């Protein structure tokens, strides 16, 4: 999760997100170079003492400032497409979970090995335990094994929602009448937070998503009641 006033991306928990962070750094560097160049040119234009009123054409300059941006765009597009196709790979997921968006909570269905279906509501502020995260913690988390490819099937029961976990690099729209699929493989155990990312009504900000990733051995022991 992000700490207060965090501006940058959260640390990656999946290989895709690691790639995305590298790509983000790459694209940001290009953007900074272009911005710096433009600002420099602007500065020179505003502070020069030279005046010339008889320029009619500048073929060489026009050629350069057409070819160079095209090359820059290719340099951005190639890694981007590579990551896009990497995201679409479906590498034999060992577990499938359905996530259904409602107004304003999520329902999760673990139907691979038996039928476990539960709702995940945001914890109201009055029921937070000391140290809990307001507007982020939920009553029932989505518990998953680490280092196992997981497939999420995401849909909605009423309006558009979006199931997002920034640290895993996931954001998939929950569209009523449609099943969207996303896969991920988490590399670190822990608790990871996300929030609904498509405006869905009054309590759009109050339907968070919490993933609890645990070692496979513990996951295999099955669900236990907690009192």
């Amino acid at each position, binding site marked *: 999760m992000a700490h207060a006033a965090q501006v940058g991306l959260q640390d990656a928990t999946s290989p895709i997100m690691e790639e995305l962070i590298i790509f983000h750094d790459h694209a940001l560097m290009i953007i900074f170079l272009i911005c710096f160049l433009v600002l420099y040119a602007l500065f020179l234009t505003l502070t020069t003492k030279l005046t010339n009123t008889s320029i009619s054409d500048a073929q060489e300059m026009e050629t350069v400032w057409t070819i160079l941006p095209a090359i820059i765009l290719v340099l951005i597009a190639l890694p981007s497409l590579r990551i896009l196709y990497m995201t679409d790979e479906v590498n034999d997921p060992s577990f499938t979970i359905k996530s259904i968006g409602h107004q304003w909570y999520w329902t999760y269905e673990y139907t691979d090995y038996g039928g476990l279906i539960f709702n995940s509501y945001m914890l109201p502020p009055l029921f*937070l335990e000391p140290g809990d995260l307001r507007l982020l913690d939920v009553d029932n988390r989505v518990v998953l094994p680490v280092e196992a490819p997981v497939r999420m099937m995401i849909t909605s029961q009423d309006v558009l929602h979006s199931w997002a976990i920034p640290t895993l690099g996931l954001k998939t729209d929950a569209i009523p009448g449609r099943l969207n699929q996303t896969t991920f493989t988490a590399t*670190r155990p*822990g608790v990871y937070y996300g929030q609904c990312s498509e405006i869905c009504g*009054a*309590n759009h900000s109050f339907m968070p998503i919490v993933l609890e990733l645990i070692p496979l051995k513990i996951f295999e022991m099955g669900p236990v009641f907690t009192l």
Partner: protein
Amino acid sequence: MQESLCSASPQSVGRGAPRDAGCALPRPAEAGRSHAGAARERLWGGPGAGARTQVPPQRVLSWSLGRPRSRSHCRAREMLPRAAWSLVLRKGGGGRRGMHSSEGTTRGGGKMSPYTNCYAQRYYPMPEEPFCTELNAEQQALKEKEKGSWTQLTHAEKVALFPPKPITLTDEWKAQQLQRMLDMKVNPVQGLASRWDYEKKQWKK
């Protein structure tokens, strides 16, 4: 101290009980509370009640290892009525049109009241409607004054009208939250937990 302005009192069921009930966080000291603070409490329905919400969630199943659950003895006793209560709520609170809220008679086919017996719906945790709609004459007058120019309000009145700050913004809670984030090793690669030295239990120099 005046309790909730609603006629029904909230029940202390569920996940550790709401903080107004028995096993709860220590309340801030009530002595020395200012007039504005007392007025705000009456207007907003008691400390921490600005977001008074509904029956706590039912933690049916969990693989949970991590977070130690305290107050389990409270929870065990409350599990059975809570299970029944959450079933009622899951069915929509017994039907919306037939719902008798604390405000009075049912509203036939009209807007759904966000609160039921002083609790918001589980799927609607932060209703925009004010929690307490029964105000005494002084509070009513203040609300009327609020409709006019705000420059006429005194500082104390402005404070009374302002919603209370969430408890999670106190220093104590922020410290506990930071400790929890460090225990969870949030962003251990380049972020928060990477700057904490777990052996020496201090920030890395």
